[in-house]
């Protein structure tokens, strides 16, 4: 039997210390050992029964419940004031066999895998690599769990790939304590698994596009995500280049996505006519405090996998003195005018080294990110055609009303089909400021005030935008979700109401959903 440890607590915090948030009880479920229960499917179903028991226990206590994985989200989306469940120990993986596939399945069965909720991106990648496969994309690092990634819309910089949720084929959700409360949802337009396999999960099948795409970026509100079926692809290499180019050229590329006719070319990455190839990944770093007409860009090109390539890992990875970061924060709070100088002096730590070239698998390029203390990140999704305009506006705001201890980066992501996916534009530019977390003083505004001003500036300048669900922002901003997604929040709620009983809607609602008006 899967076992659950629990602990009474008063508060909980994210990895980057964006809380604390109130909490009464924290659960951790561990799977039954494989010596006792050798079959993965038995351990998987056994864990589902345990989760249902916890849901029932929570319901009986009249409280709410929320699962979380790596606690990487930088707001309270993963928290619940009553009970939380750490699902990081639930990491079963199963390849999907051809015989498990639906008769209308259009995927290559060899590319399909079922992962349990608490599997991290790193674990997924390693399992896939053992099978000659790779994820299509990931975030900038690998510590997030698959359930956390899709619930909040984690993305990389795949121009033609999309976000993590965009290679999800089906979802196994636990939506209550009863026998028929285990469901497997996949789009009717693209079925993958047959009913016999779904039956092995003790689940009832729901084939419905609207339900699937609403639950895909479910913000934790569609029940407990127990398993995720994903489509992988044959393993590949990424060749990564870091270049310093004119800002005007970097933004021309950002606004047009036309790498073929750009004046910027990497000689090794051109076609036979000498035109630039389209990269897999494009990222622009902007230090808003610098007058430098140039900026650093990162590009990656997809290559066929080959056995021999230079080791992408350094032998030594240094981390900053935590006391130095603490000093940085204190200087920021008391002498905000020193921020541009501090950013400049830390540029070698913050920015990748120019002219660096690396080759590696996706899992090697986007490797572990060490914890370096409290951090913030505000991330807006905008149409890529607005990227230069938005960057100029947000940069000006950060200089004029700040300074704020962070720098900007822009990444570009293909459109998602998820109802509330924030990568909603044909190519979304995710414009993000990352930095160290500070406390408001007389001399520097709070993070919430800064976030509010960013929203106001984008609205005043008629730039349509979305916000990353897992990042910092002023989530209480009036009418925010409807402004970002028009009528889609209603469609999302409609699907949630169709799937979950009123009691379970309540149980799986948290403060975040209430704040943004989705519960």
């Amino acid at each position, binding site marked *: 039997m899967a076992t659950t*440890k629990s*602990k009474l607590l008063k508060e909980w915090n994210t*990895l980057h*210390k964006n809380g604390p948030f109130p909490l009464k009880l*924290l659960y*951790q479920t*561990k*799977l039954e050992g*494989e010596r006792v229960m050798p079959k*993965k499917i038995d*351990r998987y179903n056994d864990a589902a029964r345990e989760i249902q028991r916890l849901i029932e226990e929570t319901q009986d206590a009249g409280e709410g419940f929320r699962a979380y994985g*790596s*606690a990487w989200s930088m707001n309270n989306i993963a928290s619940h004031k009553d009970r939380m469940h*750490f699902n*990081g*120990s639930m*990491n*079963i*993986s199963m390849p999907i066999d051809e015989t498990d596939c639906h008769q209308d399945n259009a995927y290559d069965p060899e590319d399909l895998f079922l992962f*349990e909720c608490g599997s*991290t991106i*790193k*674990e997924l990648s*390693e*399992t896939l690599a053992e099978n000659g496969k790779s994820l299509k994309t990931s975030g900038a690092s690998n*510590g997030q769990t698959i359930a956390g990634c899709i619930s909040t819309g984690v993305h990389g910089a795949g121009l033609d790939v999309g976000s993590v949720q965009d290679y999800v084929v089906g979802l196994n959700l636990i939506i209550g304590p009863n026998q028929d409360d285990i469901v497997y949802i996949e789009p009717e337009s693209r079925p993958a698994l047959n009913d016999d396999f779904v039956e092995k999960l003790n689940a009832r099948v729901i084939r419905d596009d609207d339900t699937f795409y609403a639950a895909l970026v479910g913000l934790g509100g569609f029940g407990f995500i127990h398993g995720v079926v994903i489509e992988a692809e044959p393993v590949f290499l990424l060749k990564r280049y870091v270049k310093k180019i004119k800002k005007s050229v970097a933004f021309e590329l950002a606004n047009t996505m036309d790498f073929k006719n750009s004046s910027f070319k990497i000689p090794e990455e051109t076609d036979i006519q000498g035109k630039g190839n389209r990269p897999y990944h494009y990222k622009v770093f902007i230090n808003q405090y610098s007058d430098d007409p140039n900026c650093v860009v990162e590009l990656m090109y997809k290559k066929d996998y080959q056995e021999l390539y230079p080791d992408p*890992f350094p032998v030594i990875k240094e*981390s900053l003195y*935590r006391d130095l970061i603490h000093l940085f924060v204190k200087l920021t709070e008391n002498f905000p005018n020193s921020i541009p100088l501090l950013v400049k002096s830390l540029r070698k730590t913050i920015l990748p080294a120019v002219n660096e070239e690396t080759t590696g698998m996706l899992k090697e390029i986007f*490797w*572990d990110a*060490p*914890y370096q203390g409290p951090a913030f990140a505000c991330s807006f999704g905008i149409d890529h055609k607005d990227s230069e305009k938005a960057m100029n506006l947000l940069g000006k705001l950060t200089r004029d009303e700040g300074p704020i201890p962070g720098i900007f980066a822009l990444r570009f992501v293909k459109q998602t089909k998820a109802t509330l996916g924030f990568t909603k534009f044909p190519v979304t530019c995710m414009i993000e400021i990352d930095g160290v977390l500070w406390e408001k003083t007389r001399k520097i505004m709070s993070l919430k005030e800064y976030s509010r001003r960013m929203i106001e500036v984008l609205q005043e300048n008629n730039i349509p935008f979305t916000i990353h669900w897992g990042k910092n922002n002023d989530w209480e901003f009036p009418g925010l979700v409807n402004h970002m997604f028009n009528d889609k929040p209603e469609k999302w709620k409609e699907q949630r109401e169709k799937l979950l009983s009123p009691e379970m809607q309540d149980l799986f609602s948290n403060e975040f959903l209430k704040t943004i008006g989705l519960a």
Partner: protein
Amino acid sequence: MKHLKFFAFIISMCVLTSCYSVRLRNVNGAPQLDPFSDRDDYYRGMAVVELDTVIKIKLTSKDFTFLIKETDACESGKINIIEYRNTFGGVLLSVITFGRKRKVKIKYVCEKPSN
């Protein structure tokens, strides 16, 4: 007095520079996490095992091997990250006991069990 100060300075420099940590981390594998941990250092959120002890070995033994066992804090029995700390006191202890007593100050995090 001047000599005494110089001697104290040299000793303190030896003590300070002889205390350092070395951390080794696997490129592959994920660390075992502990949601109940409240650490705020490099190991935030991880299930860390800390060992701070003195191992006594026979005069005839050249070295020793410390075995990592399967426990709650190390479910896989496999190491993911290990950090050892070298201290001036530890070196001194080994010297004055002719290597019979070895100060062991380590932290390690095991691999998260795969399923």
